[in-house]
């Protein structure tokens, strides 16, 4: 039953996306050029990477509001390790990503060891990690990175942006893990009924720890790409990105109550949001107007999901 529902929701969403793309193509001649599409792929990679991890998080019935702050903290640490501490840049990248991953592990520990609701735990670490980024950097930006570093954010392989390759590889890995492995099945089981999952021998806490740690890792990977793309490090990087991420995941059919969701849906959600943003920008709507549209789309998507669910006598 739920499989047919998911299939239907994703089909509807995919059709909607095609419709949106067609409309945008008609509205603006610039939209359907290879150059614009590849550029959009470049811009959506950072959000997309975090959305992959967020899909797992929300499928378990959790949420992670701190991903934007982890991104900011990793970016700042990358700059500080390299410029202030004097580490070679590759070592600084690895060290900063390690810290970002540990920040995700920290979220997981607070949530599993102390049973703090994920919403509150990550609201606290949202403030903490962003605060560390601001405190460590003293709001000073770091620039002057060597030319080779810009490869991750500005380079191309076979004519396709590097970060789009990274996103595609990570997407395939995430899709396989969620749909085809015991870990993926454990993720769904936890979201459907945590107590039942526990009593059927699933290692609930370990699974959640891995998922929140992965969210930290992907947020720090996004941070490296972000810094490489814009060539500077600032402490406010990634502010509010959690809103885009959660909206995309929920729009992609992942239930905010947990237990349901697919990576394919998330990818469609990502494309739809990026198309909306780009299309609205091309048709002259300013950035703030798009925030309104995203907010409406978020509430509308959850409402539609809840109503469809209720009609089918769902959860």
């Amino acid at each position, binding site marked *: 039953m739920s499989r047919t529902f998911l299939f239907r929701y994703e089909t509807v969403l995919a059709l909607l996306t095609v419709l949106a793309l067609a409309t945008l193509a008609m509205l603006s001649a610039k939209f359907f050029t290879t150059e614009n599409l590849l550029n959009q792929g470049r811009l959506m990679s950072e959000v997309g990477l975090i959305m992959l991890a967020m899909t797992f998080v929300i499928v378990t019935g959790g*949420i992670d509001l701190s991903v934007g702050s982890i991104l900011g903290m990793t970016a700042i640490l990358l700059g500080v390790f390299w410029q202030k501490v004097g580490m070679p840049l590759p070592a600084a990248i690895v060290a900063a990503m390690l810290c970002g991953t540990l920040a995700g592990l920290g979220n997981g520990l*607070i949530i599993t060891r*102390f*049973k*703090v*609701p994920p*919403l*509150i*735990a990550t*609201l*606290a*670490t*949202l*403030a*903490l*990690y*962003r*605060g*560390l980024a*601001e*405190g460590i*950097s*003293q*709001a000073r930006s770091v620039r002057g990175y060597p030319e080779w570093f810009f490869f991750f954010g500005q380079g191309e392989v076979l004519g396709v942006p590097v970060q789009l390759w990274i996103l595609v590889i990570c997407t395939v890995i995430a899709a396989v893990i969620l749909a085809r492995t015991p870990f993926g099945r454990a993720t769904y089981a936890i979201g459907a009924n945590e107590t039942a999952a526990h009593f059927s021998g699933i290692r609930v806490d370990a699974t959640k720890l891995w998922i929140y740690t992965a969210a930290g890792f992907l947020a720090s990977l996004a941070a490296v790409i972000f810094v490489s793309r814009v060539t500077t490090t600032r*402490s406010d990087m990634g502010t509010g990105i959690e*809103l885009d991420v*959660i909206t995309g995941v*929920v729009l992609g059919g992942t239930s*905010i*109550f947990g237990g349901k969701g697919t990576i394919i849906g998330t990818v469609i959600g990502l494309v739809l949001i990026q198309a909306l943003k780009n299309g609205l920008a091309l048709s002259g709507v*300013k950035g*703030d*107007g*798009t*925030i*309104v*549209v*995203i*907010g*409406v789309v*978020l*509430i509308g998507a*959850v*409402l539609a999901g*809840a109503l469809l669910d209720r009609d089918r006598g769902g959860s």
Partner: protein
Amino acid sequence: MTDAVLSRAPAGSPSRSPVQRFLAGYGQELIVGLAVIVLFAGVSIVNPRFLSDTNINSIIAGNAYIAVAAVGMSMVIICGHIDLSVGSLIGVIATVAGTLAVSGYPVWVAWLLPILMAIAINASVGAFIAYTRIPSIVVTLGMLSILKGGLISATGGAWISDLPPGFMIAQMRPFGIPSAVYFMVVLTLLAAWFIANTDFGWSIYAVGGNSEAARAAGISPERVTVGVFALHGLFTGIAGILFATQLQVIQSTVPPNLELTVITAAVIGGVSILGGTGTVIGSTLAAILFATIGSALIFLNVSAYWLRAVLGLMILATVLADMIRRRRAT
């Protein structure tokens, strides 16, 4: 679960002494209050200028609007919900009030109309949450971006200046004390009385503690949710007016991270994040505590850029203590 519902306001069994009962009921509020006093004492020894009139004034009067919003937020959290859009709504209310005042409407219209608007908006949000059963975090996250984006697109971020002097209610000083302080104290005490002594107040605790149990007891969780959000709208509206009138200009943007500060104040003030317990007095004290910390950092020559990290650590510590205390209690 019923224990959790009833554990806070008139806490303790009759066999315990009044002091013990007070500590059991208001432990967190006491800690926050003491922290404010210790901080004031400590910092003023290092730098006596910390105790100057202007500084105390800017700490308390300048942050009264946060305290007022935190009181409303406390009730929402006690009811088992959360509101991430509070900062954006304060920004919208302040801008609407300023625009009305500059356009020549009587000041009482410029004060009251935005407050009614805040009540209407939040009551609708509450109704949406209650009847669609979509979690409040999702709905208010959406509202955050709708209000914020709408405000900036409508105003283009232009500042509102040349506000009429009669409009600046937060700056008026009856008996030498800024009126923002009166608002903060009176609204906190009113809310504290209301939540502990009225049927509606009790039903907020009941719904937050266990909404199905509350329903079985004849309370409609839906109506309580709408009511709580409307009440929160009233407090947010007043906070917006205080925010609009405390400076000579209104920036027409959303104060950054205001929702986080307001939620943190409520949680550190002793409202349990899981709903069902807490009081509103602690939220006001916690709002003052933050402002004191922020000011203390400056007077101790610590960079203010560390403020958010300190707040994050504090909310984390409070939440962990709350969870450990709950685990011990059960």
